[in-house]
């Protein structure tokens, strides 16, 4: 999905403007949009990857003018509609009660899984495949086709591309890949190296 979310390296968005003493939430609707988004997770109607896909499929002008919780709210409305919750009441996998919230969130939801052994070791040279899938994908456009090297092997994780399509977790090896910033941007960079976490199906041996 080469959509509005894939902004790495783009110009025209202006300087970064931090807000002094920023509150955690700016408005009640943001608070509620956040809470509903998190609480719907354990219900199991969609994966985190699918919720990201529903955010990045917002129209470009909306994606670039809404606050981020606005993006979450728009996506949540569409996820709820996609599952058909207006018309029926599909059984949830789990509903978090008040007392369960804190321990459940503090325990987290790990994404590592059993699966096939990683193909690449630390130091291996790899190239991100040239690709442009319309579906959810976590290889940013600025890295596609570029060559780097493995700096860390994270084990086997849920594969976002299939997970976002309700096509299963398809666990696969996850690596941190380092890139020389000049290979990405030529002379037009002040970075030394850029690292990203990339899944084995995105990578070819060099």
């Amino acid at each position: 999905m080469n959509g509005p979310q894939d902004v790495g390296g783009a110009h025209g968005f202006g300087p970064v403007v931090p807000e002094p003493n920023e509150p955690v939430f700016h408005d009640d609707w943001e608070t509620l949009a956040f809470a509903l988004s998190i609480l719907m997770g354990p219900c199991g109607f969609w994966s985190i990857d699918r919720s990201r896909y529903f955010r990045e499929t917002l129209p470009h002008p909306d994606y670039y003018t809404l606050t981020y919780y606005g993006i979450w709210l728009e996506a949540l409305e569409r996820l709820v509609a996609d599952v058909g919750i207006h018309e029926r009441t599909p059984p949830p996998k789990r509903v978090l009660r008040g007392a369960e919230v804190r321990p459940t969130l503090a325990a987290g939801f790990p994404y590592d899984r059993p699966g096939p052994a990683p193909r690449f070791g630390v130091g291996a040279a790899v190239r991100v495949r040239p690709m442009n899938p319309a579906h959810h994908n976590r290889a940013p456009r600025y890295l596609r086709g570029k060559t780097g090297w493995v700096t860390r092997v994270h084990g086997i994780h849920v594969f976002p591309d299939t997970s976002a399509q309700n096509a299963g977790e398809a666990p696969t090896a996850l690596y941190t890949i380092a890139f020389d910033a000049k290979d990405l941007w030529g002379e037009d960079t002040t970075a030394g190296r850029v690292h990203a976490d990339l899944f084995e199906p995105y990578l070819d041996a060099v």
Partner: protein
Amino acid sequence: MSGDHSHLSEMDVRVRALKSLLVEKGYVTEDAIDAIVDYYRDEVGPMNGARVVARAWADPAFEARLLENATAAIAELEIGGRAGEHMVALKNTPTVHHMVVCTLCSCYPWPVLGLPPTWYKTPAYRAKVVADPRGVLDDFGVTLPPDVRIDVFDSTAEVRYLVIPMRPEGTDGWDEARLANLVTRDAMIGTALATAPA
């Protein structure tokens, strides 16, 4: 980023409608909403990450464990959970400075830093930092020597990054609580340095 009041009202109406539906269906409860808001507004925030960094500064053995397996080391302080299940710590040095971003959405290490500030989620930051991190530092009023290499980490999967800023000079013998006061949120993202002692 509209500050238009009619827009906010529309969002308010929409989110309330959605909440009513989800409560009615039994997927969401009022007390769960209150619990989650309390948790992320009051209990989880940069003070957690600051404790981790201060301990790493004070205790070399802890720092070694943090760099080896950050998730486990952070759990020693009873910190962890959603969006921090797979942590990696990045140690700044006199020759390498680290900065963290999520170009594709808003991935951020909640258990140690809380929910991300707005600027972290803006296209402005996400677009700029992977190509021009010094320009971003300039936006934050931070200048690094030209020979410092800046390494940017793009959080493209479920791994979350915590930057360990360099310990400021003049803090020898400080205890962890005092050190933690020097560790800001931005220093743990990489858009600032740790605060120098007054």
